[in-house]
């Protein structure tokens, strides 16, 4: 909606938009600034937006105190693994829902979403016991499976909304040319759906990375990702604001950077078919 407006109005709206956006961003900015302060200046009163003595000591301390690379690697494996596995299961499902819809397709989709409405806490004990007995507890495989199933409804829905926008005439043409169902999916549909699949992948990696209930309750040490790393820092051990901020920044930095760089794809993917 690029419309011509008067210069005065342009600058007023610019000012207002920047003010609001900075306000929303401020907690993240404040956390990052605090992570580079000394503990004393982090709690100084009145608060210092900038400090005279910037330091990276907090990061060195956090790094020395805990095995960050292991937590980081677990986060990567769990979030990427669960998303890829989820895509492998969801792509065929979304394909058939979009192109061979039945009477019950919409109900099926809503049922899938409704499985996500079950509060995690409600089924914590059964899942905990199941994971213990099957040897999945505190393993990366276990968390990959759990998060895959948790995000599967979202993945199916997102892909479904993308696939529906692909004109079915193209598929019919492929079929006329004698393409098998499998070839149709691999050579015709998938290339056209790559942008949609990329957005789905991004959003679900972020959701899995930020998941902090199952990743904390179903792990102890071996498979614990960054959500557990940060939980160990907020445990009562005296308040060290600068170190807490450094650990927090380390936990969110990878996904923040990924998200910022892929922002365009992500935003396009976030619509869930809300935009026609």
């Amino acid at each position: 909606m690029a419309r011509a407006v008067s210069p005065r109005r342009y600058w007023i709206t610019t000012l207002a938009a920047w003010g609001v956006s900075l306000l929303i961003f401020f907690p993240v900015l404040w956390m990052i600034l605090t992570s580079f302060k000394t503990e004393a200046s982090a709690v100084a009163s009145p608060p210092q937006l900038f400090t005279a003595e910037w330091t990276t000591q907090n990061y060195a301390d956090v790094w020395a105190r805990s095995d960050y690379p292991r937590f980081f690697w677990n986060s990567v494996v769990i979030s990427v693994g669960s998303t890829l596995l989820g895509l492998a299961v969801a792509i065929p499902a979304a394909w058939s829902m979009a192109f061979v819809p039945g009477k019950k397709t919409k109900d099926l989709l809503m049922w899938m979403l409704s499985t996500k409405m079950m509060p995690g806490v409600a089924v914590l004990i059964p899942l905990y016991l199941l994971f213990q007995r099957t040897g999945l507890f505190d393993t990366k495989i276990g968390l990959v499976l759990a998060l895959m199933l948790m995000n599967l409804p979202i993945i199916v829905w997102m892909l479904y909304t993308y696939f529906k926008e692909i004109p079915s005439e193209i598929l019919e043409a492929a079929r006329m040319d004698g393409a098998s169902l499998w070839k149709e999916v691999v050579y015709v549909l998938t290339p056209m759906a790559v942008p949609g699949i990329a957005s789905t992948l991004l959003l679900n990696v972020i959701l899995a990375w930020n998941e902090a209930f199952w990743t904390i309750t179903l792990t102890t040490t071996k498979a614990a990702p960054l959500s557990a790393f940060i939980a160990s820092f907020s445990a009562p051990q005296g308040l060290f604001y600068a170190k807490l901020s450094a650990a927090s920044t380390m936990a969110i930095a990878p996904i923040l950077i990924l998200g910022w760089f892929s922002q365009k794809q992500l935003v396009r993917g976030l619509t869930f078919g809300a935009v026609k």
Partner: protein
Amino acid sequence: MSTQSNRAAARLMVAPSVILLFIWMIVPLAMTLYFSFRLYRLLSPERTGWVGFANYTWFIKSPDFWLAIFNTLALVGGVLIITVVLGTLIALLIDQPVKGQGILRILVIAPFFVMPPVAASIWKNLFMHPQNGLFASVSRAFGADPILYLENHPMLSVIGIVSWEWLPFATLILLTAMQSLSSEQLEAAEMDGATPFARFRYIILPHLTRAITVVVLIETIFLLGIFGEIFTTTQGGPGSASTTLPYMIFKQAIAAKDIGRAAAGGIIAVILANIVAVFLMRGIGRNLDA
């Protein structure tokens, strides 16, 4: 176009998703249902047996129960209202021709990338802490006593934190929807003398219906199970002032180690989720020709 074999193949392709989700749903649910009728306390494992509806009656008669239901609904409703209203306003603002729109989007989306334990501990310590928090400093600068956010207004504080986490999601979906609105329609309305409010009410808002539906649906799914933010900030207190249904179940399972009662609470939570789902589908489902 779809032949018989095609249909069969299509069903086969949906099957893995449906079967996996069904198992994922039904096994824990069946176990929870079983436990909910059993005496099952980790502190006295030798006493077992069927107890009928005793776990359920204990849960429902517990003094915290209705407060927990109220808090759960207040959290879902409060966050929905705040994120949809503020999200719409912010999207309207950013959608105007402004300088640096790209950077603005990067700033606004940031909270979405912050994992809940980090968000909760940042707000709790760096902002709401009564001595060292930034809010306390601001209060002191104005000569006022620091507000004890988490102690005196625990539910409002939690709603505020969760709203901050979900605001980017609502804003971005609404912004994308607004940008798909053709500007000719708005310009025509403007030339016909429609006020800005009338343009919003009769052109923009109807265009946003579908986007708002999606925001409400997705957020409700995630908000019904909110747990980590309360665990990190208030621990359900003070007393049980900020105890929600998920938190009440957690207290039974982990603190009281009474699996039977926790399971009964779990089934009640599932029923509540289903009631909310039915209302959602009735109310807004028709906006979504999925």
